[in-house]
């Protein structure tokens, strides 16, 4: 598993787990971040918040938040 922040722009991943308290998890889940959902990194400039797409919604996440979303690659292999 990788933290979501490791994805480069246009790479995709499948959510496996969320790390954090109930508040964080409930908030993320209500925005569509649940295990099994496909996320696409749309912008990751290496600094500042990232933008990802999940369930047709674009969401800006702080790097700390993106670090707490754990993903696997769609094929289950390694990230390039």
């Amino acid at each position, binding site marked *: 598993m990788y933290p979501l922040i490791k994805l480069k722009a246009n790479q995709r991943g499948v959510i496996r787990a969320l790390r954090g308290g*109930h508040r964080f998890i409930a*908030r993320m*889940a*209500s925005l569509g971040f649940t*295990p099994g959902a496909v996320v696409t990194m749309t912008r990751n400039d290496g600094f*500042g918040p990232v*933008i990802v797409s999940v369930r*047709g*919604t674009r969401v800006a996440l702080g790097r700390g938040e993106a670090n707490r979303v754990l993903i696997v690659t769609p094929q289950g292999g390694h990230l390039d």
Partner: protein
Amino acid sequence: MTDERSSPVIALAGQPNVGKSTIFNWLTGLNQHVGNWPGKTIEQKIGTFTHNGRQYTVVDLPGTYSLTANSEEERITRDYILRERPDVVVAVADAAVLERSLYLLTELIALPVPIILVLNMMDVAEHEGIQIEPKVLQAALGIPVVPMSATHGVGMDRLLSTIEATVDGRIPYTPSRPHISPEHQEVAEKLKAIVAPILPDLYPPDWVALKLLEGDGEMIALVRERLSPEQWKAVDALLYRHEDAVLDIASARYAWIERMIRAAVTRPRVGQVSFTGRLDNVLTHPLWGMLILLAVLGGVFWLTYTIGAPLQGWMGDWAQKLADLSRQQLAAAPPWLTALIADGLIGGVGLVITFLPILIIFFAVMAVLEDTGYMARIAYLTDRFMHAMGLHGKSFIPLLLGFGCNVPAVLGTRIIETKRARLLTILLAPLVPCTARMAVITVLTPLFFHSYAPLIAWGLVTMNVIVLALLGILLHRLLFHGEQASFIMELPLYHLPNLRTIGLYVWQNLLAFLQKAGSTILLVSLLVWALAYFPGGVQSESYLVAFGHALEPLGRLMGLSWQALTALLTSFVAKENTIATLGILYGSDLAAALPHSLSPASALAFLVVQMLFVPCAATVAVIRQEAGNRWALFSVALLLFISVLAGILVYQLGAVLGLG
């Protein structure tokens, strides 16, 4: 609530950015009242409309992504539905992000009220290449579904007739509801059996059991308070063992949504970049996005200064003319009455009115930025700079526009979702040097510092920005214990702004300003007028000046004369009063008298205090309106302390350097 038969109550619910307020505005027009939810700082909008001879009441619930008690908005929404039991809940979803925006429906549909689903923004969805068949969705959900494009008024008739039919019970209502995994269902049943006997009537036991499993703080507290210690222990143990249930429940809801929409929705091919995606490639780019943002902000300032400022000056002149006219008309009246009306009353009302042009521009800009979806991009771009102060990117716009005027800056903090970040932004806003303070600096600095004036003026502005940043970091650490506002923000799809929405937004905010802040400003300016007029009717012998004299010992620490102290006191009404008061107290030749009376060190201390001083009455009034008495007082005390401290430091340092 009045008789239900005569005026059914419709509650509008929906996630943020789904166009809920556009629908509310279409339904009610100007028949709406904006206030606050009882005991909360969150806006409450209630309105009425008439359809086929029957009057309906519409309550606009706050925008929320879900109904777990994580935020004030969520608590208000669910408490309202459970306690007031509206006749119909209209759940508004964004057709362009259907899957995500149906999440709230999965929670609403579990509550004991009839629901109508509105698929809003059908036009935007089509633009993004998404096809939806509302009839198929209606068949799957078992509740009425109404497709709409509220910005164009499309689908309103259908919504009205569906509301009417639902209120009259003429529509079959057989909702499908999501199920959770069998394992967690079993736990939920156990919890339900324990808590059912002790729950107040308004809470459905099924729903409470689910909320407990989701780790809902409010429900846990409620149950804990009512259960015996042994029973609570059993509940607590169950919840601890099934801590993972929260994600399972959310996943189950999405799985249900996927089943519901599978047959009704056709999505564009994967890899096809949407309209919003193409725009965002440029607008959120670290370089191009920033440059475009700077250009947009430049445009806003240009608008404020070329239209707002002259209008403000023009209205001020008219107030002056009106005051002169009333003085002539009242020549025969007692002098105090003439002064009360001409200076106190007309002066005060004039002051309130001069804020209007800038506020209209400000509110219109805010509404356009929000309505198009660009505001979220600004927050995204600026978040990295605001982070150190514990602020969110959304604090940027209100603070920046504070350079125009602090009043809209404080009002503009409403776009910030978390209470903490909002309060912090409100406390910092008065440190942004507004145009009135800049005017004072522009007039006074050359009198003292001649050719060095631009450098000094630049230094003063920089000082304010630095003090703001330092205070931000400090308050964030001390008051809020460094707790980082997490940055999780939806970037809504771009769409064209709706004139009606913008117009109503400007109108309602102006009205609120006039009603609440306007009266406070008028009161304070009358009070200061009275202090400057009585006992003798001459300012140089008034109570205010006596007060200035009384402050002389403190003034000596900053090297300030009683005239300068009095000028600072009157700047509380409006910052630009400083110059007028100095003019009265030093006589007409201010340019000659000032440098003579204040040494360079004193002059610098005076300008520093002026820049950091207590917010003007109007700003205090809106802080009070937005955050309450306590925080308004705190803000005044804090800035009084900072400004006096800075004044003393600057003067004493200057004196040591031989400038005293």
